[in-house]
């Protein structure tokens, strides 16, 4: 039964006509909205490659049916650096070599952005490792990922303080 939902993706409102109730958010993004930056690694919530922000919180997009997300705000990797400037997490990933093949990277970065927003890890490496452990990296760039999240956390906190001052 066709079903229409409204989604805001990376700040743009989309009227999405779903001809199929089985479509996940991940497949909607990748196959129907031409946003293939979000990756599929397992399609069942076990790897984190598909991590996006849904209403500001990180979520495995492969586990969400698009039809249930009417009115939601989605941020994907493509929406992180609009305007051309990289997000501090993206910059920190490059500078700390926090990836090799890059396939898990969109998910890692969205997860890091979500983790930093949650404010639970701070720049404590052990908590960052724990908080990032829903995102597998088979190339095992974990050392760099932890450093990158630490660095981005500090940079963002500093920027915020400067903005407030």
């Amino acid at each position: 039964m066709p079903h229409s939902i409204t989604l805001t993706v990376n700040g743009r409102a989309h009227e999405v006509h779903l001809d199929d109730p089985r479509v996940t958010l991940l497949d909607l993004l990748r196959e129907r909205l031409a946003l293939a930056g979000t990756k599929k690694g397992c399609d069942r919530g076990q790897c984190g490659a598909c991590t996006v922000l849904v209403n500001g919180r990180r979520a495995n997009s492969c586990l969400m049916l698009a039809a249930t997300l009417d009115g939601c705000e989605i941020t994907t990797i493509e929406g992180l650096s609009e305007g051309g400037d990289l997000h501090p997490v993206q910059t920190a990933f490059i500078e700390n070599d926090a990836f090799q093949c890059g396939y898990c990277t969109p998910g890692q970065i969205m997860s890091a952005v979500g983790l930093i927003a949650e404010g639970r890890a701070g720049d404590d490496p052990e908590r960052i490792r724990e908080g990032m452990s829903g995102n597998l990296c088979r190339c095992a760039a974990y050392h760099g990922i932890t450093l990158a999240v630490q660095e981005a956390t500090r940079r963002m906190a500093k920027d915020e303080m400067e903005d407030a001052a």
Partner: protein
Amino acid sequence: MSDTLARPMRFGSNSGQPLTRRDGIAKVTGAATFAGDNSPEGLLHAVFVPATIARGHVTYLDVESAERHPGVTCVLTPQNRPPLQGDPSAKPTMFSFRIEVLQDDTVRYAGQPIALVVGETLEAATEGARLLSPRYEVEPVRTSLDDNEAFGFEPAGFGLPAGAEHGDVEAGHAASAKSVDVTYETAAQYHNAMETHAVVASWDGDRLTLDMPSQALMMSCAGYANFFGIPPENVTLSSPYLGGGFGSKAFVTGPQVLAILAARMAGRPVKLMLTRQQMFGPVGHRGATRQRLRLGIDENAELTVIDHEGLAETSTFDDFVEPAANASQGLYAARALRSTHRAVRLDIGTPGPMRAPGEASGSAALECAIDELAELAGIDPLECRLRNYAETEPGTGRPYSSKALRECYSQGAARFGWADRPLEPRQVRDENGLLTGWGMGTAFFPAPMFAAEATATLRPDGTALVETSAADMGQGAWTALAQIAADSLGLPMDKLEFRAGHSSLPDGGIAGGSGHTATAGGALHAAGTDVVQQLGQIAAADPASPLHGAGNGRFVARESRIYLEGDDTRSEAFADIMARTGSAEITGSGSASRPPEDAERHAMSSHGAVFAEVKVDPELGQMRVTRLVGAFAAGRIINPRLAESQLMGGMIWGISFALHEEAKFDHRSGRIVNADFAGYHVPVNADVQGLEVITVHEDDPFVNALGIKGVGEIGVTGTVGAIGNAIRHATGRRIRRFPIRVEDLLAG
């Protein structure tokens, strides 16, 4: 990567430095396009149906229900599969595997494709595949090393490894004052690159376009062309990025052939992405092994013999026997050395090369056995290895092209603090009462070269284009190879356009075996050098040039100038030479491979030493690697940042091998019960702490013109044994089976 970057490069310049990745921006913004990200106009989706039994025949498929499902456009089964020109049972090249492409109703392993469903949407194809509800005639299965008879074989090709024997092995046994006779087991492991195998295939007449991750582009083109009866040059393969390969993406696979066939039948592009579960079967794995090691030492703890027998699984229909025992060749100065291999045929998908094939499994067993000897002799494990240090290659006596292993031992030990290690096990507890142990292992991996070609073109505007079909699977080819090319041309990185990852380019060879940087890099270096010599000759012939008359000399390039080698006073800028001659572009070509006489003259390997600290909960048996220090000597390091990342990745694969990874079979059904990321454990971020890599300086004038060895695989070796030995040191328990599990430590 200039052609795929949406934004200007802000990172990456200055050749010779630890540059950040040139594809970094593409990868952090989601702009890097992996095969499955492509969705050409008119795309159909394919899903294959994996067998849920491991041996027998498919007796029924509910094709009608699948076909009736809205959106399903085609159901491909052995009944209606059109003929293929290539024979799936043939092995036309050294690197060919036998594959399943619905040639009959036989099931040879669980997960084998038994049908392919194509649909207008992924959802429709997925549901169609489910509706096929196969029925089978089931035969008894064999999935453990004890389920079938072991056999020996004549070495052949790629999958049936030769052993080796040097010296008098029986005399070596007889001469030993002390000896161990131990058997180690390693589990079956599945590559599981984060990007599953994928293909987007489209046909235009008899021309085929493939977006497909490939570690060996030209070999893939030829391999797939063979199945469709077209010349390899009719296949255009694009593989700018691979989401990891680890050995699994160099070969033709059945599911990918079927997707290409479906595209031809439909006259529309078809996309197939394997599910995670489907990665456990038709795309290779590291075969389980059982290895017996009989080692002897004399009174000085010097090895009289290393006698290493490997038993490994292979499939019922093809041969890939893990060459584990060969890890004992080339490393320790034993008076006699023997490596032999036998195999067992099981109802499993054919194994294949997986990151450090042979060496990983073999080193795991060997490094533990060496420690067992050290313990017998009552000496420190590092001391034991130093007493058996090989100054020349054991057995052959050939000199090493270079070998800074002694420096690896000393620098690694110093950084780790090894000197404080108590000799006896189970001596140390940390502040929380956890048993703490230290172990080490020697890392070792050959430094091969394959064959590659490249071209370089210097343009009048002072920029250059360099091209080779090299593949970047995360190791950093986009960056390190560009650095080599820029150096050879004497250009800064921002003047260089580098094209790779496409089959229209000169053959970049195989990204594997830790030989890609040396090989493709060698070809790029040769191409750049060719351009420089051509330009030098043009200048030498020109009376207006400061280089006039220098035509008998050789030329080198730095900072966009040509110099006469050995005479820095004679030089001229590229731009001036080109402006005067009016020459449009200068194109050079180069190739690289290792001359057989070079390979004869020297033994060529990378070396390293890995030190591990493990903490074990005495009650619960939980184990954690809390520190891991690796010191590696791998010839010239082109980009330390990327090389260290690769070495660390390898060491984490070592943690995985030692403590996590294992495909668990239900031996009654022959199915893998943990065929997904919930059950098949690989390390997560929280499993990795205290990691340090040291790259030890090594100048190697013999290995190749650039002095490069390779760092892709060596990190796995040494590490597994170091962790096993650390667990022994922490607990007093010697576990001879990988991965080491909590229950192993809790048992009796």
